[in-house]
């Protein structure tokens, strides 16, 4: 019976199949039923959160390490990857994420280079030996403006976003402190990892609320939507995907808090993994802020 139990997981197929619910959510979204869409995506998130919480609870009850928590001995001796230990997976995952964001930001910015006369595409193209008639990939210079002809600095609220950037950088600092505390083994103290993680999550949530406020005011006051030229379309693509990653990061941090609280946290590597992800999100935001808002 014991062995039977080990090779069967009740939660995994439920999580896997619950992606159907997200799928139906997206389908409702595409048909314009936003309330239904958010409900369905919410159900999906609830399933994921529930299963992770259940898993953490199960691990807190057992003393021995779970099978995917231990790093195989022969791996520790590996000359190339050995030093990474348990953090290897987040690095592999981050490769994919780096490619993802490089592409979003890179594509949007190259579109801008071609479409925006002001950024000197012709000079760059001449320098690189590319065709200068601006039809690389079939694009042409329509200007980096929205439907009313406004440039980025005329539409976007830059002081607010600068403030928001500082908010996010602060959260990176608290994340570093959380990791430091975890390294020392201080998880539950007043200045321990748990409290710093909560702080980070709180600041992250502040960042998200400011961003939502910005979106609402842009859409209502400025009539600036995804239909506002390539500028509008890529703006929402970049900041939207970043926002979703921040949300994911906050959920991940809250899981860590729960893990500390329930006593399932055995060493600092989980906090470090969360930290790596969080810092990655910060770096992406700084890139975005520079390329979307400031340039």
């Amino acid at each position, binding site marked *: 019976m014991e062995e039977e139990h080990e*090779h*069967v*997981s009740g*939660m*995994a*197929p439920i999580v*896997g*199949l619950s*992606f*159907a619910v*997200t*799928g139906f959510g*997206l*389908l409702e*979204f*595409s*048909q*314009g039923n936003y309330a239904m869409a958010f409900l369905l995506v919410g159900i999906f998130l609830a399933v994921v959160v529930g299963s992770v919480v259940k898993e953490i609870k199960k691990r807190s009850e057992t003393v021995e390490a779970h099978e*995917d928590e231990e*790093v*195989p*001995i*022969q*791996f520790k001796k*590996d000359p190339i*990857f050995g030093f990474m230990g348990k953090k*290897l997976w987040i690095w*592999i*995952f981050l*490769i*994919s*994420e780096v*490619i*993802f964001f490089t*592409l*979003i930001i890179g*594509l949007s910015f190259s*579109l801008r280079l*071609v479409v925006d006369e002001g950024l000197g595409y012709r000079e760059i193209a001449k320098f690189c030996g*590319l*065709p200068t008639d601006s*039809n*690389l*990939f*079939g*694009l*042409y210079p*329509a*200007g980096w403006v929205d439907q009313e002809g406004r440039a980025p600095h005329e539409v976007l609220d830059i002081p607010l976003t600068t403030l928001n950037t500082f908010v996010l950088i602060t959260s990176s600092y608290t994340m570093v402190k959380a990791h430091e505390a975890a390294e020392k083994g201080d998880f539950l103290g007043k200045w321990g990892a748990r409290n710093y993680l909560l702080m980070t999550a709180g600041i992250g949530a502040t960042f998200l609320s400011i961003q939502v406020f910005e979106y609402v005011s842009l859409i209502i006051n400025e009539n600036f*939507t*995804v*239909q506002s*030229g*390539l500028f*509008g*379309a*890529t703006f*929402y*693509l970049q900041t939207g*995907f970043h926002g979703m990653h921040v949300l994911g990061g906050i959920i991940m941090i809250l899981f860590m808090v729960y893990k500390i609280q329930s006593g399932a946290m055995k060493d600092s590597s989980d906090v470090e993994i969360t930290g790596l992800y969080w810092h990655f999100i910060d770096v992406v935001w700084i890139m975005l802020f520079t390329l979307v808002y400031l340039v």
Partner: protein
Amino acid sequence: MATERKTTSYWFLDYKKFFGTIDHKQIGMLYMMFSFVNIVFAGLLALIMRAELYNPGKDFVESRDWAGYFTVHGTVMIFFVVMAMGAGLGNYLVPKMIGARDLYWPRWNNIAFWMLVPASYFVWSSMAPIGWTAYPPNAIVLGGDKVDRWLIGLILAGTSSVIGAINFLLTVIYLRRPGLTWKKLDLFTWSIVFMAFIQLAATPVITIGLVMEFLARSLGATYFSTNAGSSPLFWQHVFWSYSHPAVYIMILPAMGLTSLIISRFSQTEVFGKVSMILSMAAITLLGFIVWGHHNFTASPNSPPGWFFTLTTFLIAIPSGIKTFNWLLTMYKGKIVVDVPFLFAISFVLGFVLGGVTGVMVNTIPLDLVFHDTYFVVGHFHFIIIGGALSAVSGAIYFIYSDMTGRMYNRKLAYAHYIFWVIGYILTFGSMNVLGALGMPRRYYDYSVLSILPNYDMIVLFNRIATIGAFMQGIAFTIFVFNFIYSAFKGELADEKPYNIAIPRLWMTDEEWEQLENMEVMH
């Protein structure tokens, strides 16, 4: 002669195991079953399309439905048949090959598999008449939720493949047997490593593209619209810079399987192993910079076509090296001619036929005629059906006794082989001829081509293609029948089903050591 080691277990009849299994072999089998279900229905779509094309003129399918069929046929065959087979065989074989108990994340493995099921549901329910390339503006102006379903299905499939890729990489990096260095790693595991790398690096591209198309449809975002300064060509570049590497996601595991089978059945090691690995690396990396060869006729002057012609031609070099290495693996061997070996030879044949036609398609003056004609269809079907699916069928026969504890019926397997090879050569060979005669792909009715001087030939070769397709249909029916029937009624398998020693599969520790201390002969 039944042994204790192999007994038939019908684990999948227990619903708890069926859904919740986290054992790599069982998840591998789930992937294979999933892929079988999909190939049966997607294959039926292909047969319906070919039957409609047997005679010129409208027969029994409406044009719009027909367009839905080729979209779903293409998408399902790529994402839920060949890629799923790659993931399934990787699941089944990789832990064995590297001496691990299981994959590194057994439960994520289960999640990745069950995500594919809703993904395939969304693609199957879409029947969107857009083609698997979903070029805007056609895919964007189309009303209803068909295209949205298709997009959602692919986003889910992409997410699943990223999870699978991370899992495979972690497994190979973390869980290798002590002493099994990267150099000693066998070629199949290498091919899975390269496959996982492509999935990891290329899937973000298609996810972004799909999300952009999704937003363009649902919110009217202007990513591909001409009056915002963008262009529908932008999608083509985003799409192909994923979809070309995706071709290698399909073919790399098949290459690995072929290396495995040919070397095992020739009872030698693969000839030139280092060059095989380097070739795979070269194919993987070059695969990312060749996408522009899909756009020679879309925008002939930018980006520069000569660059993409050159990079694509360069891929022919590692492919050629691999082909000759496979052949020379037989040199001075003791070849046991059995079903899996024959299928591996069939892979080499399909790969060579697809390869030479690929070189033709890539030459711009020829591509100006061949692009988007049946020539292209014939080319990539040679690679994927004649190549990848042959290797996969061979591998399934190879591990059949280990999966089920029983032996398949050899006579039926040979019948499958003969129908399969003749079928695919007839179908895709005549598709190549059709393309050269000027018949564009995705044509529901070719009677409009009657003004072309070679119209008689077009009708003739369409008929041959249909006959070949039905031969493949018969072959696959035999395969599926053999697979299911033998699992319940077949003979119990011997310990050594092929009368050969099979290193790295089903091996004891001693045998592992012997293998690791092998001498190299010059």
